[in-house]
Structures are given as C-alpha cells and as structure tokens.
C-alpha cells in the first residue's frame, strides 16, 4: 500500500471536521464528499475563497469601456468590468449598503454601477461615487456628517489576465496565475489561447451531481473510449491512439492529450496544413469531421483542467472552455464557451462550427457526461461511509506520458483537494 501523501499546510490550524480520509489515500474518495453540506460549505471557504485562481470570464467578452459581465466564484456572485481606461476589475456583486445584487444581467454596457434598491452608485472599479439623499431631503434626514464615501465600496477581487482568460481570487497569498498553473500547464494554455479570440457560441447544462464528480470525470481518461462510443461506432479512423497525461506539480491541474501516431503522419498533412484532414468513417454526413491540422505537435485531442472548476478542450479543431459552477451539494451548472481565433478563415470557422456537435449538452462524443455523474450521485448518496476505488494505472498521482488508461489525474485532483481542504 502506498503511503498517504500528507495534506499540505494550506489549511493548517483550521478547525477539523469529523472526517477521516481512508488509509488507502488518494486511490479512494469517500462518497460523503459528494453529499455532505458541511463539506460543501467548507469548500466555499477553503477552495473558492482560498488560495486558488478561479475562472471569471474572457477578456474578449468585455471588449469596450463600460462593459461588464457577471459570474460566480463558487456560489459568490461576481462582477467583472472594464473601466474607461481599459483596465479590468472584478468585485463581489453585492451592494455595500444592504447587500443586494448590483448587476442583474449576464452582460451590459454602463457608465457606472448603480444598485436598484437605494441607488448607491459605484465607479466601474467598484469605488462608491455617491449615495442618494446623502444630504437628506429639504434639509431633513441624510447620512451622519462623518459619512465618508471612501470608506465604502464593492468588495474588490484580485484579478489577472492570462492569455485572455480573466482569473480572480480572494487570496492575497496565492502566487501569480502562471506560477499557479506551473510551466507545463501554462505552456499548453499559451498554445491554445495566446492570440485574439472570438466567441462562437455559448450554452449551459444543469448536471445533477456534486461539482467534484465532474472535476473527476474531466480527469478520468480511463472512461473515454468505454463510455463514449461514438468514434468506435462510426469507425472513425482517429489516428490518435498515442497519448498521455501530464500533471502539474501540485497534481490538481492536468493535461490529457491524444496524438496522431507518427507512422500515420502522411506527408500531405504536414505539407498542407490548411487542407482538411479526412477522417475515414462510416458517417453518412462526413462533413461533421472535416478538420485541419492546426499545430505542429501532432496533438489532435486535448482536455486540460485548471483547479478548481475550469477546463479547456481542443477536440480536433473544436476549442472550448468549460466552466462548472457549484449550485448546491448535488447540482452543478456546466458552461460551454465555444471559441475560434480572429484569424480564422471562413472555412476554418465552418469546421469549428460543425465540430461543435461533438461536445456540449448534445455532444455526439460526450453527451453521456451529462448523466453519468448523476448516476454516481444517485448510486452513492445513501452510503456516505463507502468510497470509490481508483487504482487503474497505480495508486499514486504521477504524469503518464504513454498511456491514458489510467486514473492518475483523478488521484491528482484528490491529492490537491486534500491539501487545500486539510483532509
């Protein structure tokens, strides 16, 4: 049996919950983790309010001065704005007066932020500008003479823009985003996103499971060809059976990739990268899989997670961000943000559009993920003392560059989770 990795010191000194991790360590996850409201509450504090960078939105979603959009960190409502100097700010979406939501729309363009309740008015960076009836009405009422607008504001959130992704954190201690990601993860995000982006469409899905079951599912490269049988059913010649898993130093982020096998790397593909690569298949509508080789590294499919609740997919040419927001202990909203590049030709955009059929709420390849985690939720909720068993590929969390038949990245998630939760 492997030694259980020691929880790191992140959560040292925090009050202990009556909870003990099984001695087998990260190859087990007690089912209680998916159903216990007290653990869920602690996650809001230790993860989403803790030393993590959280996905907020994309730079390209708020291009103009005065643009805002709303999102969440954990269950905390958040506003992201662009001010008149083009600078991006994030703040808790909660009026400094009575605590009402200040912004109600998903996105808008405004001169300043005004709470509808008592018209407290804020600058785009969250500083309080003015208060209605501050000096009273006809000399009566008003705020006390020592009221100081400078002492009230929307609670600011530290942000960083990395490759057009706006990350936010409540932590002053956490290192910068690039260090948080580590070199391997940061490099692959740059490969995928470090150029002007274009949003091609969005939607969301409600999945009836704890958010961590989806976090596991994304890292579970073992299930890919077993649960998702679209490629095998349609005999799609994927040319990408070679692949592996890379974990970040903390093990909680991961990158799973599939690579076009070298022997199959026909000369015509590498010489004419803009031409469609034809994927042999039994499809009646093969236009679905028209694709082109976008990168020189031969990687055709990748899934990359950033702890706690973000993922970047590159499925053939279908680039998307997935963000999954906890909505209670057994409910999660999964957002799909499909992207292309500004530089894409019309033909390339069309290929990305058709390939969007592969994923999402109606994804031919992966729609099963919408229900499979719910099946686990329903199967486990009455037995919190039991645990899952995850020893495919060993009992530790280490990168595995030659195989994806492993649960290494799932164990990696739990290693990071135990560290930050102090479990």
């Amino acid at each position, binding site marked *: 049996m492997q030694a259980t990795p020691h929880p790191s010191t992140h959560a040292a000194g925090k009050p202990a919950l009556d909870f003990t991790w099984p001695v087998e360590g990260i190859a087990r996850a007690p089912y209680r983790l998916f159903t216990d409201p007290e653990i869920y509450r602690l996650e809001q504090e230790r993860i989403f309010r803790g030393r993590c960078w959280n996905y907020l939105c994309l730079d390209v979603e708020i291009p103009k001065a005065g643009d805002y959009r709303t999102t969440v960190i954990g269950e905390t409502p958040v506003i992201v704005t662009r001010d008149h100097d083009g600078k991006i700010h994030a703040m808790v979406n909660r009026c400094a007066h009575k605590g009402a939501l200040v912004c109600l729309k*998903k996105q808008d363009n405004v001169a300043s932020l005004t709470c509808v309740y008592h018209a407290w008015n804020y600058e785009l960076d969250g500083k309080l500008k003015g208060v209605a009836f501050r000096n009273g009405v006809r000399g009566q009422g008003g705020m006390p003479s020592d009221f100081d607008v400078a002492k009230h504001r929307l609670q600011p959130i530290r942000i960083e823009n990395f490759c057009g992704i706006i990350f936010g954190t409540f932590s002053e201690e956490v290192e910068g985003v690039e260090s948080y990601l580590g070199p391997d993860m940061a490099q692959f995000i740059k490969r995928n996103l470090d150029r002007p982006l274009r*949003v*091609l*469409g*969005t*939607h*969301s*899905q*409600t*999945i*009836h499971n704890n958010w961590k079951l989806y976090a596991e599912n994304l890292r579970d490269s073992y299930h890919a060809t077993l*649960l998702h*049988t*679209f490629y095998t*059913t*349609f005999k799609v010649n994927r040319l990408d059976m070679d692949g592996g898993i890379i974990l970040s130093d903390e093990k909680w982020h991961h990158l799973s990739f599939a690579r076009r096998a070298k022997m199959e790397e026909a000369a015509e593909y590498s010489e004419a990268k803009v031409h469609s690569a034809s994927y042999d298949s039994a*499809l*009646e*509508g*093969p*236009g*679905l899989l028209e694709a082109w080789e976008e990168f020189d590294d031969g990687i055709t499919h990748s899934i990359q997670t950033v702890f706690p609740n973000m993922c970047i997919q590159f499925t053939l040419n279908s680039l998307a961000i997935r963000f999954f927001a906890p909505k209670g202990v057994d409910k999660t*909203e999964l957002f799909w943000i*499909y992207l292309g590049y500004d530089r894409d030709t019309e033909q390339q*955009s069309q290929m*990305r*559009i*058709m390939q*969007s*059929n592969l994923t*999402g*709420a*109606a994804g*031919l390849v992966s*729609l*099963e993920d*919408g*229900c*499979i985690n*719910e099946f686990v939720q329903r199967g486990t909720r009455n037995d919190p003392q039991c645990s899952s068993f995850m020893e495919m590929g060993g009992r530790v969390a280490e990168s595995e560059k030659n195989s994806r038949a492993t649960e290494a990245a799932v164990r990696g998630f739990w290693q990071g989770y135990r560290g930050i939760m102090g479990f």
Partner: protein
Amino acid sequence: MPSVIEKPAAQSSGDPCREAAELIASYGHAMDDGEIDLWPQFFTSNGIYHITTRENHEAGLPIGIMRCVGRGMMIDRVKAFHTANIFEPHTYNHIVGYPTMSYDKASGCVTARSNFQVVRIMETGRMELYATGKYLDVIQQEGGSLKFRERVVVMDSRNVDILLVVPL
C-alpha cells in the same frame, strides 16, 4: 404515422400554408411517438436543423447546441441515438402553437414561426418542462411532399437540463 410528408402532391389540398402547418404538427407528433427514425425524412436532402439558444440567436453567434447540415448528419444522429449514446430513457410531449406563415410564390417556400413547449417524461415517472422556444422554419416541396429546408429551434433558456439527445 399520419403524416402529410408521405402524401403525394396530387392529393394535396393545394393550400401551401395549411400543408406547412400540418407538417409542423406531424413533426411534433412523430417525435412524441418515439418515431425518431422518421426524423431525417422531415427534411429536404440538404436541409438544415439547428438548435440554439435565444442568447446566441440574438447575438448572431453560429454555435448553438446541435447543428445538422444535410440529411446524412441527421441519419448519423439517429444512429448514434440507437447505438452509441448512453442516457436515461425518456420521451417528449410537444405542445406547438399554431404557426404564423407566409408563402412566397416565386420560391415556393413557406416561412413559418411557431412556439413550442416540450415536457420530458423520464422512466421514473418524473415529468417536467424541458424546453420552450420557437421554431423558425423554411418549408418547401421535395419529392412530392413538403419538407423542412431549414428548421432553427431557438430555445428561450441558455440551459439544458442533463443533456439533449432526442431532437426537439
């Protein structure tokens, strides 16, 4: 399946809007009766079926939730439904409002808009409102019967509960 799509042109009522309204009604009935195999036949051979959200539609964004261009892609969807995709069994009940329609004599096309509500019934007996929205259709003759040349399904909500595998 009682459907106008199988009806030869000679027996048609001659009123294209009335026939288009029947096509729209028949489509909902076929889906509710579990006749997913017939689904591609409701479209012209190069027909377009696109499910998107109101938010994407109004912003002019091209990616929604499902997009089929040509009957071949619809046939693949049906095959995936039967043999590849895994989901909890369920059925739909469509309530489709009477369409507003206009007939363009020159092109022979009927353009129609109808509102829908779809209730999803799970095998556990759970029933719930699954989707509401509007159908934006372009309908034309092909092979002696009316078919959808384009059916854009604009869902009011951005959110899909669990997953979407049976076309709306």
